[in-house]
């Protein structure tokens, strides 16, 4: 297929952004629907081209399409190319991004209806989609970093979409700054790799790492630097604090950016650089440990949140931790030589990205469901919901299916991808495996806590309840179908993982263990929030210290903001800078002025105004000059 098609996938949404921003916004402001049509047209065409690409890639031997590079910049001997990688990983990511983005754009028409920033919204959404598609296709680190920052910018713009709300503006700033901490490490790693190898090309870096040319401490630090970028974007501990706050943005934005695509960019980056990571035991173990810890750590906070979107946000962090864990444990097996390098490299990517693939659909659906709920109730606080099942049967049904899929119930999509990760973890890292399987229980519990609080019981709010319009339900329906079948359509085999038969999966003890734990989680949620056999309030009292710890999010926000930001940064470092500026820099300037003034007031005493004193001075001066000339000439 022509390489122009691949570039068109990126450029169509980009043109959509340009047309909306520079033509529709200034000249057709009274017809906001034009921006929607343009966005849908561009992303729809990108989706069609992505499907074409996917088919072409699957027809190729080895699932790679060779694409020419174009020279972008030449600085001395350094040449930076624009090039794309079209392999199985990129093809799967293209499908995820375009499908979820298109569904979200349809949904947004209903959700954003009548909003003052309607045109701006679709302009940013187009720009985001273009950046995300560029990110998954880029074949060198500079080009990738460009789009990496592009999605970060769009995330900032869309979290702060309602910038007149102080919380939204603050959350946008927080997201930008926290991810920037990670991006700094990423940029340093890119420069370190370039300094050592002289190339930005990801394929070449992979070869160098596998051949052992690139190795030792340089490789370790470069991989950890790249991973720090991934930690920022994918909200891994300890840089996870921005994602729950990012829920201040419009809900479709949360579904697209902060659930399905952008936050998965970190996982994608680790998968894209997987041979580099897997060549270094320290780096890949870091990935696995951070991922496994984040999975359980975020899940515990999800247990107690009252805001439906925040529960989903912690769930997203937790699931992203799973993906990192999946990549990490297979990489550890490769690094320790337990499985062959060739097999392990495709297997690791397959395990991690398969979960990314299924998660994108059911988590986007959960967010769209939460948006649908808030569309009716006007709030995200679950204490003001309840009993919505009767008023919103379709939303309920689809939310339930997505929750079951997330909880990993057979035969929904989440089951297949989560089993893959658990099976790999069990073989390689037992401690991380136990963390992950406890997380399965927690995931089922918090999702069904949401369901029982939101859809069951009596309605506790005051709004007039109604089902959402068809334009919102239809994209949710398509995502529901994907949340059911995404695990069965063979994407994992396409990526290179062995896939189990429909019933064969149930013959494994591990599947039963995780199904039982998920069932236990659902049952516990039912006992507390559904049937109310156990009182939530008394449990909260009995475990008050733990409850406080979790609901205050381990005081990490306070730790970061009060300790690091206020004490260390503002009072400490900024205080030091302020002192240096006030006393040393200003002191030098003022000191020079003072010395000049004082010296002047001393020297001016010489100006006596006495005619004869001047005459004497002239005479002495002449004598001195003459004496000088006589002595030295």
């Amino acid at each position, binding site marked *: 297929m022509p390489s122009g098609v691949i570039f068109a996938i990126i450029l169509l949404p980009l043109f959509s952004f340009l047309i909306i921003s520079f033509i529709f916004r200034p000249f057709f402001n009274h017809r906001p629907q034009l921006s929607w049509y343009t966005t849908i047209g561009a992303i729809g065409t990108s989706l069609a081209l992505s499907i074409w690409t996917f088919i072409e890639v699957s027809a190729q031997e080895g699932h790679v399409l060779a694409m020419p590079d174009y020279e972008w910049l030449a600085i001395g001997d350094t040449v930076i190319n624009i090039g794309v990688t079209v392999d199985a990983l990129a093809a799967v990511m293209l499908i995820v991004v375009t499908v979820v983005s298109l569904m979200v754009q349809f949904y947004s028409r209903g959700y954003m209806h009548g909003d003052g920033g309607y045109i701006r919204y679709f302009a940013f959404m187009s720009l985001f989609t273009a950046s995300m598609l560029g990110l998954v296709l880029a074949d060198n680190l500079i080009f990738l970093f460009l789009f990496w920052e592009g999605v970060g910018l769009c995330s900032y713009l869309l979290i702060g979409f309602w910038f007149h709300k102080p919380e939204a503006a603050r959350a946008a700033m927080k997201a930008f700054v926290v991810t920037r901490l990670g991006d700094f490490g990423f940029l340093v790693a890119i420069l370190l790799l370039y300094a050592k190898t002289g190339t930005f090309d990801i394929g070449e870096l992979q070869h160098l790492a596998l051949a052992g040319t690139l190795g030792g401490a340089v490789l370790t630090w470069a991989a950890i630097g790249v991973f720090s970028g991934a930690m920022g974007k994918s909200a891994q501990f300890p840089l996870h604090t921005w994602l729950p706050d990012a829920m201040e943005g419009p809900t479709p934005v949360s579904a697209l950016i902060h659930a399905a695509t952008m936050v998965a960019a970190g996982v994608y980056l680790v998968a894209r650089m997987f041979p580099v990571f897997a060549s270094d035991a320290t780096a890949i173990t870091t990935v696995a440990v951070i991922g496994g810890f984040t999975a359980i750590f975020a899940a515990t906070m999800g247990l107690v949140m009252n805001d439906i979107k925040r529960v989903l946000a912690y769930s997203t962090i937790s699931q992203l931790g799973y993906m990192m864990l999946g990549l990490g444990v297979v990489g550890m097996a490769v690094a320790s030589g337990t499985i062959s390098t060739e097999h392990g490299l495709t297997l690791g990517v397959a395990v991690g990205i398969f979960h990314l693939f299924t998660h994108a659909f059911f988590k986007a659906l959960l967010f769209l469901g939460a948006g649908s709920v808030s569309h009716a109730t006007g709030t995200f606080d679950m204490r003001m919901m309840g009993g919505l099942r009767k008023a919103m049967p379709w939303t309920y049904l689809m939310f339930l299916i997505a929750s079951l899929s997330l909880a990993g119930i057979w035969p929904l999509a989440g089951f297949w991808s989560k089993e893959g990760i658990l099976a790999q973890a069990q073989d390689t890292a037992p401690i991380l495996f136990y963390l992950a399987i406890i997380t399965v229980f927690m995931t089922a519990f918090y999702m069904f806590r949401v369901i029982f609080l939101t859809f069951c019981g009596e309605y506790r709010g005051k709004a007039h309840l109604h089902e959402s319009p068809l334009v919102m339900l239809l994209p949710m329906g398509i995502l529901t179908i994907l949340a059911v079948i995404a695990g069965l359509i063979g994407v994992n085999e396409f990526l290179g993982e062995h896939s189990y038969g429909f019933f064969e999966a149930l013959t494994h003890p591990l599947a039963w263990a995780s199904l039982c734990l998920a069932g236990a989680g659902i049952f516990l949620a039912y006992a507390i929030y559904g049937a109310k056999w156990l009182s939530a309030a008394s449990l909260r009292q009995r475990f008050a210290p733990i409850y406080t710890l979790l609901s205050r999010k381990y005081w990490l926000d306070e730790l970061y903001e009060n300790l690091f930001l206020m004490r260390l940064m503002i009072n400490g470092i900024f205080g030091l800078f302020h002192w240096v500026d006030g006393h040393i820099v200003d002191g030098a300037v003022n000191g020079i002025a003072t010395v000049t003034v004082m010296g002047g007031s001393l020297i001016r005493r010489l100006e006596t105004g*006495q005619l*004869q004193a001047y005459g004497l001075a002239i005479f002495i001066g002449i004598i001195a000059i003459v004496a000088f000339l006589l002595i030295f000439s």
Partner: protein
Amino acid sequence: MSVGLEHFLILSAVLFAIGLYGVLAKRNAVVILMSIEIMLTAVNIAMVAFSRYSHIISGQVFVIFIMVVAAAEAAVGLALIIAIYRSRKTVDAEKFDLMKW
């Protein structure tokens, strides 16, 4: 003892020194002006002497010019002193210290 160039120059130097002393040490502005005239005269003597001994006549012509300029200068200087006297009722040079810090 024949009179040579040295004697003229010594006379010139002595006169110049007396004039300089008067300029620097005397308080009365009129006396200072007179001392300046003595210094000019000393220079004139040196110039005429050099002119005579080196047979270059332009030195003597210059002296005539200097005397003309000195006469004009004396007139302007005396006029200034009278103007100062009229405003300040003194010709003491130490009292003319308006141009100090």
